[in-house]
């Protein structure tokens, strides 16, 4: 049947299409139901973050980091802070590191909840979205208590965190952990093992291990293809190595249990399992956190020693890298941002051809991009 040549039709998906999760356009060429070519067009949300980074002071740039992956702003703050700290000789208090990890991991859960909910939405399951946003709302409320913001936190700063947790906040996190673990099981039953969902995602959009490495995929996209690699364990930063040594968490990897290794379902199940692992990390921190200062000693005007450093951290979507260059002044010479969504999106060019048009949305959704980060 596929031999029958019909006239090629070019379809614009986006820039305002619910499945593109923001303003992105995918130019899809189709031959009947078959996709013969795909070309992502980005840049609609380009806000020149890297140029701004060269024009504002080191500390002033922090709020801009919130805005690339707006679903995981804590992690962005963390990545930038670690990169600047790599150039400075500064000790981060232990309590600050613990709070950083708690916030980063809670934010990972919140981000994966959005991924989970909207992926269901993309392929026609509306209810899981409501469940996911209920729990996410709780996390956002907890963040609001600690820093006053729900989405763009600027809470993790160069040198530590902005302020100590308010009284009772850590207990509330503990309560959240207990409740969430039960809810998580509901999610798995509700969507991940749902027969319709499995049929729509298993064996769809298969990324082989070789392809994943060639395209430089990171995060759940890479682990979904069966590559056991996580920066938190393998290139540890902060106290993640200690947590790993304590045996507090594991790295979920795709197994192809519902279809083929590296299909959309695998990528998604990795994300869903990661929520539970993040929960374990948070619990470990809650059990081991001690009193103490929450920010290191910083001068009033921050001058960063001359040099250059690259720091990559494990964001919910993959490796968020900051490459910063300083000449010893108050402003960066270069503030390069390597966004995981940008890199992960490139795979669509090779992944979409020879799939069915109906699967396009399932495949785009499984890359879990945030357009704020692809365009920066």
């Amino acid at each position, binding site marked *: 049947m596929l031999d029958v040549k019909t006239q090629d039709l070019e379809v614009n998906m986006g820039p305002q299409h619910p499945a593109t999760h923001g303003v992105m356009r995918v130019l899809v060429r189709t031959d009947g139901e078959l996709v013969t070519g795909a070309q992502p067009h980005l*840049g609609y949300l*380009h806000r020149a973050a890297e140029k701004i980074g060269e024009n504002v002071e080191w500390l002033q740039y922090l709020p801009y980091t919130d805005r690339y992956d707006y679903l995981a702003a804590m992690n962005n703050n963390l990545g930038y802070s670690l990169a600047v700290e*790599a150039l400075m000789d500064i000790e981060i208090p232990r309590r600050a590191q613990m709070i950083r990890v708690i916030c980063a991991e809670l934010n990972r859960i919140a981000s994966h909840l959005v991924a989970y909910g909207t992926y269901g939405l993309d392929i026609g399951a509306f209810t899981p979205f409501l469940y996911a946003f209920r729990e996410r709302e709780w996390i956002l409320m907890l963040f609001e208590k600690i820093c006053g913001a729900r989405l763009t936190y600027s809470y993790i700063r160069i040198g530590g965190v902005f302020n100590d947790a308010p009284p009772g906040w850590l207990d509330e996190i503990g309560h959240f952990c207990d409740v969430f673990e039960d809810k998580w099981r509901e999610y798995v039953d509700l969507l991940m093992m749902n027969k319709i969902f499995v049929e729509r995602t298993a064996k769809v959009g298969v990324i082989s291990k070789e392809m994943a490495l060639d*395209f*430089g995929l990171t995060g759940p996209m890479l682990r979904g293809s069966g590559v056991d690699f996580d920066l938190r364990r393998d*290139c540890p930063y902060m106290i993640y190595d200690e947590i790993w040594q304590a045996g507090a968490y594991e790295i979920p990897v795709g197994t192809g249990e519902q279809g083929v290794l590296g299909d959309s379902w695998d990528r998604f199940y990795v994300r869903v399992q990661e929520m539970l692992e993040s929960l374990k990390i948070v619990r470990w921190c809650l059990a081991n956190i001690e009193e103490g200062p929450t920010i290191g000693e910083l001068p009033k005007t921050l001058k960063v020693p001359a040099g250059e450093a*690259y720091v990559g951290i494990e964001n919910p979507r993959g490796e968020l*890298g900051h490459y910063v*260059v300083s000449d010893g002044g108050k402003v960066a010479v270069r503030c390069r941002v*390597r966004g995981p969504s940008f890199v992960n999106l490139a795979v669509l060019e090779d992944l979409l051809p020879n799939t069915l048009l109906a699967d396009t949305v399932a495949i785009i959704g499984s890359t879990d991009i945030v357009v704020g980060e692809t365009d920066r």
Partner: protein
Amino acid sequence: MDFQALYAHLQAQGAAGLGGCDEPRAKDPEDKQDKGRAGDPFVLVAVEQLPAFLQLCRDDEALGFEVLIDLSAVDPAAEDEDLWLVIQLLSLRHRHRLMIKSMVPKATPCAPTVAPVYRAAQWHERECAEMFGITFEGHSDPRHILLPEDWVGYPLRKDYVFPKEYRGVSCE
């Protein structure tokens, strides 16, 4: 491997275009002008040899860099004669990283594409080209990626002048 071991191995393999390395060092207390250098070490590679150098990095068992994490450029200062082309490699099996730097003269900003070695470089090179005006020879898709096709100038160059208007819309 740590950086010294990586560098020694690259030298022993006779890596194409390898032209020294740069490591962080403390401030010289005698010299008041000296600022020292913080951060991460990197190797210097001649820009025209980049594809061959990366090929070795990818295929050599002891190096084992499966992933090109990032490719970008730096314009250190308006009066400088060179742009830096900076590549970050990551080895999953050996868990080490390598930063590679190449000098690209501003007078003739050309570099060979490395996308045949690492497909990941393709989009990074497109971004680099529109932001810094570096031409990647042999690039299969040299369109703009983040900027409109008719954008004038290279925004991340230090001598970039902000436009006064774009398509009749005032930017001031």
